[in-house]
């Protein structure tokens, strides 16, 4: 067991971990931040997407020890004091989620996308979601929500 220290959602945390412990397991089991979901074992589905030093990362692809000293952001840090952020509001308003399992990863991926590209085109959004799988929505309302979250007029998109 080794001690790992990192900042998670603005708070410094320190825990003993096995060297094989994944960051995803560390967040879920070690810190009880269960909003980070595990949907696959090959880093394809994106349900575990978090931010590490400002970049979107699949938490199942990193060991917890690799996040030593890092700033880690999870879905639990996206809203504060009962207020949804702009992306979360847009997903809710445009029905960009159904079962909710992929949703944390979608929100975290979207946050990273909009940071780099504040008004992405539909094609850019669809390409950027390559690493996030949703089985419920057919992506229609997710793409629409992301366009809305970035301030684009979505009224012309087929009704939802």
């Amino acid at each position: 067991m080794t001690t790992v220290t990192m900042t998670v959602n603005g708070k410094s945390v320190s825990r003993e971990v096995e060297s094989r412990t994944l960051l995803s397991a560390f967040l879920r089991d070690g810190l009880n931040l269960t909003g980070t979901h595990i949907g696959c074992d090959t880093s394809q589905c994106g349900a575990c997407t978090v931010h590490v030093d400002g970049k979107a990362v699949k938490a199942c692809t990193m060991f917890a020890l690799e996040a030593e000293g890092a700033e880690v952001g999870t879905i639990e840090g996206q809203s504060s004091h009962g207020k949804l952020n702009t992306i979360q509001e847009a997903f809710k308003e445009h029905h960009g989620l159904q079962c909710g399992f992929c949703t944390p990863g979608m929100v975290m991926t979207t946050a990273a996308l909009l940071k780099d590209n504040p008004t992405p085109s539909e094609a850019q959004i669809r390409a950027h979601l390559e690493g996030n799988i949703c089985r419920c929505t057919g992506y229609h309302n997710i793409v629409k929500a992301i366009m809305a979250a970035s301030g684009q007029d979505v009224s012309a998109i087929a009704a939802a």
Partner: protein
Amino acid sequence: MPKDINEVVGRREDARFLTGTGRYTDDITQHNQAAAVFARSPIANGIIRKIDVSAAEAMPGVLAIFTGEDFTEVGGNPAGWMINSRDGSPMHEPKRPVLAHGKVRHVGDAYAAVIAETPEQAQDAMEAIDADFEELPAIVDMAAALSGDDYVHDEIGTNQCFDWGWIEDNRAATDAAIQGAHHVTTLELVNNRLVPNAMEPRCSMASYHPATEEYVLHTTSQNPHLTRLLISAFVLGIPENKLTVIAPDVGGGFGSKIYHYGEEALVLAAAKKLGRPVKWTADRTEAFLTDAHGRDHVTKIELALDAEGNFLAFRTETMANVGAYLSNFSTATPTFLHGTLMAGNYTVPNVYVNVKAVFTNTAPVDAYRGAGRPEATYSIERVIDKAARELGMDPITLRRQNFVKPDQYPFASAAGLEYDSGNYDALMDRMEEIADLGGFTARRAASEAKGMWRGLGINAYIEACGIAPSNLVGVLGSRVGLYDAATVRVNATGNLSVMVGAHSHGQGHETAFPDIVADMLGINAASIDIVHGDTSKIPFGMGTYGSRSLAVCGSAVVRATEKIIVKAKKIAAHMLEASDLDIELKDGVFSVAGTNSSVSFGEVALKAYIPHDFPITEIEPGLEETAFYDPANFTYPSGAYCCEVEVDPETGKVSVERFTAVDDFGNVINPMIVTGQVHGGLGQGIGQALLEHTTYDENGQLLSASYMDYTMPRADDLPFFHVDHSQGTPCTHNPLGVKGCGEAGAIGSPPTVVNAVIDALNSGGKPVTHLDMPLTPHRVWSAMQTV
């Protein structure tokens, strides 16, 4: 300025899912919880010669190891429907044990389970189990399975589960109609095998309390009461009153979480043995190997027409793969959920369907979004398209000519169902308008100008859902009833808890169901909460599948609320010193007709629980009512779909450029949720048509067992969809007038896409008549080279 969570329009469920505070089974950790990991067969078919667990038992943290030997005294997981073969003999129903015993029958078949302090320790120990198998030839191909001498279940002596005819009495007439027809179009096709792939892998966690002998099972289920019934009555014999099954937030189901699986029984047994909670969580590979798969039909369909293009008969022969064991709905799916739909939207007078269900050394196959109706629609709508092409007829005209007309309802179809309502021409009209079929020629020219072939595919579908009338399904072999239940509890302070048998795992019941009650009572929906998923809290309902939640459980909510109104009127009458026959309820206020004497809903609620002056021989205290609703018929959603694709002649790659879905769901309670359900179904249906394929090799190894090998639709595989449900014809037999909407998209879209690709290839000078799904670039490109 950020808004409070509940100020944003959308669903009530959304706030917890968007903030990471949903509560899925794997998110729940119990004190002193142990972990289970399963040892799974690496081969498709073999005799278990040895399972030596001694080394594994000595590994760190190991608490117990179970093998099939530990479950020889308990029951098996049954099929929910008994199907009889054409000769009247019952289907073959092999035992499905908790853990494999004697033989393993598919890759992934669990033969042992390790319980340890942590999942990592259990995994390490599982790998230390010394198991030895005598490998037998794998039975994978259905035709070979039916003709060969090797059996998945030796004690049965055949790989044919049943040989079913529907309707057997119509066979001779159908044969004669085909024999004498002006034209017969024949099509051989494969309905490709799919893996449901709910994003949340299955997870089950059990605890046991010795002092009360009570078990609690948290599990990823679409129907916790059905799971409890199966475990109690068939598998472990735990009394129902000692077993609580809780399905908390569930991350999608699509059919795969209807069924009881052996892992649920194992964690219950382990929890009792160890006196500790035990949790198992599937990884994605386990999901691919062991979740019930969908579809997997090999079909020959014939359509007979007269000289004017009138349909005379559909005749179908299908082999349906049921895998190594019978999953709970596996025998109903290729039969009564498929054969009964083989008249489609048409007045065709003769239909005959033959289905042979085949055991193979593959994972069990069962209902997956649509369950039998996608297979029926695909066969019908593909052969009609082929017929139109052979006869040089317009595919829309040919369909319209044979549609059931609005004045023909109720319509007795040649496949044995009574369609209650519909208007297929109106759907087609609306589809032609929204899809702008008039602009297709220009769009095709634009595609061709950039070197692409453009195709137009259209489709009409009908399906039967909202399953189902218990008296009908009982006659057809179901071993359960298919009603649902709701309890409406008016609390003393005037808010309501509505306990429902349906389970919401993406469908938005927590948002839609309160509106039904609020509308009937004239009160604010915000004061009504839905309770679901916990057998200790809800009445015995059959759960969510077959697009039944609103049509069946929603109707139970209506019936229970009607009872509430009857009783509340009696209380109001007592309070107002009037006859309950004179009490009117409007906008949440009870008043005496023709007077200004009234009491509010809240005052009645409070009085119900503080009945100081009740006439106790006439009115019981409290305000809580339960209703069970058993539907009189299926509901029959229908639709007209249109797809435009571009095919790249250089690579064979298909892209979906436009997709229009016009559906008749009867009355619509929540248009946003209904539209979302269609979107999701379209995503899965287009996935089936273009991307998804489950592949076993000749040794029964699953080649597509991860997201690196099985192509899930991504955002850039799909366009924005045009969805419309403005042409609804209300269901005539349920109180809401609603029809199920959950599966329509997945039912209607695959043939639409394939019809479009065939059209594109023909426009490019490649007279391809059929391609089997998925239409991958390789398949499309190969077809271009050979014609």
